[in-house]
């Protein structure tokens, strides 16, 4: 079952015939990789929106004017549409574009923080298991199996509902739940690396175990780590959206994209743009992260290509 999660499909890139310098080769791989480039550009745009939200937003994300609610976006053929609110206003009359910018911050924060927490837990467990093997491996495997057998959404909902919902709580719960893929992949990656010459020679010259782990093992499994990190970041963002849909995600008035979708869901059948705008943003973000992950794998590990 450990195969279950290491199934990411390598994107096939036609083999290079001429072998130029490694740097040029890398550049060519990067710029020649459409998916990677799309991912990078979209993600950079979203990061830009998040970081400069206070500067580029037309308004204040919390500023409600109930009398000007549900103004449609400018591309709508409606007398109410105005350039003052290019993407319209939400159910409480708050500027939608502004909330989208600020929402990028929260969605990225959730994805990144949850990924970091799960990454630390999962990588630690995986590397230890893969490097030491034997009993240690058995114990870690056992922990992973136990974790996998608990249904994520259900446990997350139950815990958040019993303990109370807040941004920090959502991040911690997700972070503590989704480390399994890190552990599984890091474990097998470490196993592959640990018997290679440079590791055995480091052991032979008497390097300390932490040194071997950090200086020899980690750099060589870093690319798989980054790939999993992107997948889990996307995973965390989607899970938060699902929690928000059920009313147990980030609490209003904070604008996470998941929450914006959840708040707009009542108008799904009437004003579809209200859900489509944050939905498209979320979709683009998750897609970009996934493309980036696939791209990094292809670019950094050409030997994995078929």
């Amino acid at each position, binding site marked *: 079952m450990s195969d279950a999660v290491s199934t990411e499909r390598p994107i096939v890139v036609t083999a290079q015939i001429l072998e130029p310098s490694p740097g040029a080769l890398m550049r060519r791989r990067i710029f020649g990789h459409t998916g990677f480039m799309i991912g990078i550009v979209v993600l950079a745009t979203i990061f830009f929106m998040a970081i400069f939200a206070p500067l580029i937003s037309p308004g204040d994300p919390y500023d409600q004017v*109930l009398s000007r609610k549900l103004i449609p976006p400018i591309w709508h053929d409606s007398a109410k549409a105005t350039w003052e609110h290019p993407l319209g206003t939400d159910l409480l*009359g708050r500027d939608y574009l502004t909330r989208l910018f600020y929402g990028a911050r929260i969605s990225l924060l959730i994805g990144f923080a949850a990924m970091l927490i799960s990454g630390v837990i999962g990588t630690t467990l995986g590397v230890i298991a893969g490097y030491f093997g034997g009993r240690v491996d058995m114990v870690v495997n056992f922990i992973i199996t136990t974790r996998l057998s608990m249904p994520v959404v259900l446990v997350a909902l139950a815990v958040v509902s019993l303990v109370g919902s807040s941004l920090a709580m959502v991040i911690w719960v997700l972070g503590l739940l989704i480390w399994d893929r890190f552990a599984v992949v890091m474990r097998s990656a470490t196993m592959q690396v640990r018997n290679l010459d440079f590791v055995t020679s480091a052991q032979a010259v008497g390097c300390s175990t932490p040194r071997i782990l950090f200086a020899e093992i980690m750099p060589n499994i870093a690319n798989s780590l980054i790939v999993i990190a992107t997948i889990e970041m996307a995973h965390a963002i989607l899970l938060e959206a699902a929690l928000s849909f059920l*009313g147990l995600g980030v609490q209003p008035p904070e604008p996470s994209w998941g929450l914006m979708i959840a708040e707009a869901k009542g108008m799904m*059948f009437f004003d579809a743009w209200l859900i489509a705008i944050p939905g498209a943003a979320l979709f683009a973000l998750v897609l970009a992260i996934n493309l980036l992950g696939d791209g990094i794998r292809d670019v950094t590990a050409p030997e994995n290509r078929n």
Partner: protein
Amino acid sequence: MNFSKLMMTAAVGVMMAFGANDAMAGKADDTLNWSTTREIAVIDPYYNNTRELVVMGHMGWDGLVFRDIDTGEFKPLLASSWEWKGDTAIEVNLRNDVKFHDGSEFDADDVVYTLNHVSNKDNGVLTYRNVSWIKNAEKLGSHKVQINLKKPFPPAFAYLANAVFIMPSGHYDSAPTKADGKKDFAAVAPVGTGPYKVADSKAGEYVLMEKNDAYMSGSPKGAPQIGKMRFRTIAESNTQLAELLTGGLDWIWDVPKDQAERLAENPAVTIENAKTFRISYMAFDVDGDSGTDVFTKKKVRQAVAHAIDRKAIAVNLVGPASEVIHSACHPDQFGCTQDVTKYDHDPAKAKALLAEAGYPNGFEFDIYGYRQREFTEAVIGDLAKVGIKAKLNWLQYRALRDIVRKGETPINHMTWGSYSIPDVSAIVSHFFTHGPDDPAKDAETKGYLDIADSSIDEAVRKENYKKAFERIASEVYWLPMFTYAKYYAYSKDLDFKATPDEIPRFYTAKWK
């Protein structure tokens, strides 16, 4: 429960999953399909205090009297006539031509049994306030009883009409025993005298009611028209809408304003906005139990009152039938008055008051809510404009009520439906006579209320309620917000009229 039994249940479940025949298209098969988001596990108006059971209570059961919603007049229902014997006793003559759904005759024993059962606190009726005024009932004849009150209780008939349903004698005796040794009265199968009887149900899924063909003649409820009423739980409101639009449901309510307005454009659906007895209010942590002492300061409470644009919320978010209120009661209730200290929407004044109270830059606190998140969000938005940062804590009603009672909420934004009782005692006396929900435990307020609650002189009652309302308003223990208005959406085929008390009279509905 052993495993072979479990497997049997599972096998039955498989068959049900494929075999159950979901009723569709209401008018064609004479079934009114209605839905709310709530699961119903207990079909008993005393042991399930949800709105759904208030509605079903009037369908499945009858009270002794009936309150005419238009005139406010009490009419005979199971009682044929009555007479006050002093301040604390009512003599009631009963109809002798009524049968329960199980075929048994209705007589004085049933009334005596029911009233004595529910008024006994040990029997754990959920909304004990509804029956706590009853001391006991005595049989005077085969169809004659006397109801004794603990003390003079002027709104007795409002409660008799709205919250006291008659069960057959011995009804709760068959209740199973729970693990803690107590009887589980909620588990008894429903039997009443009402225009509809429960034909089939599955806890948490549906309740199917059928027309009671033997319903008593000459009832002010009228003769039931539609053959079957099927309640289903649909938790997702979009799904409810979709079902209504495609004919899978005939009736829903609690449709948010924006959706209702757009839904009104659909020719297959009728939209109605009706008043309810529910009001929205904010209660302050007046005595500082919650860990923050800001709301112990009256000026801060006044500032909050001035900061919130209640009118804008009522108009833009609630609906045309909603109105802003200033006292802790619903305007349609007996004894309610709006002639109290009022706090207009005035952010500048709010800021000034905050500065006077020592918070020129505002402060942060936790606000708690459970119903219609957008209303509470609008409150948070208004508070932000005067510099007060409210952090939202969204909880389920039961969870919230528990912590409100522990005094842990700096502000709770909640609602109260008064169980549709048209008398202010159902709200202000619940909250301000030092009960568990009392935010202030103010002796002066309680003094006025105690006089008003036990007097049978209407003028005395009105005067003392007014004093209590003024005290609550001037001290700002509560900020009364607005009355709820409910959007109903139902099939064009359905001849239905919403009433201003949030109790849909399905027994009067018919097909067009």
